[in-house]
């Protein structure tokens, strides 16, 4: 659509600008402020320059947490995106009762508060009182997410898949719904295979929503905090201590505000960088296909 150049449109933006800036700018500047100071208490601060940033970059445990975080986020994307697409392809179309029911059931996990998600899985996975844990025990697997690192890690991953794949599925479904029926008819006449229909009609049409899905899932999984905190508390050992968890330990547990602030800024830049890379890759790939 042709848009009109008119700078008076800024007047319409001002309310949004003010309300977001109120909550965004002051905290951000405070964090930047903390990150270059040593803080002993209220009023007892002095400037330390880039010392905290150097400490953060050399922190071994932080490197471990970062590696763990990247592996986790990639695993989340590798499972949720294809699974979401697959589910969207199976969803009924049209405005029937079946469609409504599917949509409502799929969206249900998205509406559960994060700590309740953790609680649900805590209950579900317990060997003595939970269905999942009890089933594993019945078939002879000694499943215990509280003291086996691998079990804990997989449980957190499955929990995330349970919680968020619906979002990917709903997004892809929205993309699929926007394909005009004529496309399918043309494919039918050409005798296109199921794979060809997916590859050349459905996938390109889902590009826009997939960008959003990948970005949202990446950002949220990279900053996951509440769910693993409730389920495993970061343990056993450090196996499910992801970046946010480590950051909180630093800021609240050890009260290392300066270092934690420096880390937050590095963390923020990492998320920004990855989001930008994903965005660029997906948009570029799509451009090539339009020829």
């Amino acid at each position, binding site marked *: 659509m042709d848009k009109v150049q008119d700078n008076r449109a800024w007047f319409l933006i001002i309310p949004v600008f003010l309300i977001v800036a109120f909550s965004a700018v002051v905290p951000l500047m405070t964090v930047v402020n903390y990150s270059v100071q040593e803080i002993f208490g209220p009023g007892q601060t002095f400037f330390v320059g880039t010392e905290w940033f150097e400490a953060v970059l050399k922190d071994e445990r932080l490197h471990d947490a970062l590696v763990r975080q990247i592996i986790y986020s990639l695993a989340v994307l590798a499972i949720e995106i294809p699974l979401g697409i697959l589910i969207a392809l199976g969803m009924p179309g049209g405005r029937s009762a079946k469609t409504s029911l599917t949509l409502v059931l799929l969206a249900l996990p998205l509406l559960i508060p994060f700590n309740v998600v953790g609680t649900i899985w805590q209950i579900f996975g317990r060997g003595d009182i939970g269905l999942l844990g009890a089933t594993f025990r019945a078939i002879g697997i000694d499943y215990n997410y509280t003291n086996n690192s691998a079990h804990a890690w997989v449980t957190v991953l499955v929990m995330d898949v349970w919680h968020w794949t619906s979002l990917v599925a709903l997004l892809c479904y929205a993309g699929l*719904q926007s394909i005009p029926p004529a496309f399918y008819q043309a494919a039918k006449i050409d005798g296109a295979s199921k794979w060809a229909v997916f590859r050349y009609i459905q996938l390109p049409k889902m590009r826009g929503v997939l960008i959003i899905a990948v970005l949202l899932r990446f950002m949220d999984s990279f900053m996951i905090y509440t769910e693993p905190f409730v389920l495993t508390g970061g343990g056993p050992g450090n196996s499910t201590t992801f970046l946010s968890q480590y950051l909180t330990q630093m800021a609240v547990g050890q009260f290392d505000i300066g270092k934690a602030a420096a880390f937050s800024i590095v963390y923020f830049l990492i998320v920004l960088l990855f989001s930008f890379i994903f965005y660029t890759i997906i948009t570029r790939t799509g451009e090539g296909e339009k020829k």
Partner: protein
Amino acid sequence: MSKAAVLAPGSLAAPANIRRSSARVSNRTIVLVCYIVFLMLPIYWMVNMSFKTNEEILSGLTLYPHNPTLRNYAIIFTDPSWYSGYINSIYYVTLNTIISLTVALPAAYAFSRYRFIGDKHVFFWLLTNKMAPPAVFLLPFFQLYQTVGLFDTHIAVALAHCLFNVPLAVWILEGFMSGVPREIDEMAYIDGYSFPRFFGTVFLPMIRAGVGVTAFFCFMFSWVELLLARTLTSVDAKPIAATMTRTVSASGMDWGLLAAAGVLTILPGALVIWFVRNYIAKGFALGRV
């Protein structure tokens, strides 16, 4: 129109295809059904548990409550420290939805109709607010709201949640607004409508569905958020999700109560989603990118 109807003309010409296409549909449907069962199992387990007594929960595994009890729900509905949590949550979530929609509507209109200095930068800046790791930002948030005297009020949580809900609302609304042809605006101005009158009486009714979907998403993201809500409240505006951490007592976990509280946090969302079910998918399809 459904996909089956679309495929019909081709299928009539080549009967062999009917079998193939129906087999394909059923394969994909099986995946979908399996997935929904996987989604529902943990939820069923929690509902199941919420109707059990603690003795039954701890004595062994039962697939359905053998001695169904409403005791867990009764506690929640009679103890003010429990049910006030729900009232607080619903209060600030509603407030946030109203604020988000009010400020996002004109902004979305500006983004969908005009080019202006810095438009792309403002939009990206709005989105980056979703990318800040919360842990360290919580302290300055606490200090900020303490300083302006809003700490432990519903409006504080509602304002803080605007940080991620306003960008989202602008984004979804802009998609719906771009679907309305410009000519409508021009016709209205020629007919002598002022901007506020045009916006309220002509434009808004045309994007009703969009407003509904946006309200749903604001509701959802504000309802599930816990860290900010917990940091900015202590007693008067404490959300239900924070109240739930109380169930650990000296005698161990009160699992039944915890499960009942969990079930009750799902209900409002399920109710809201039922109202906008036909538009959820549309909300995303029209967005910019």
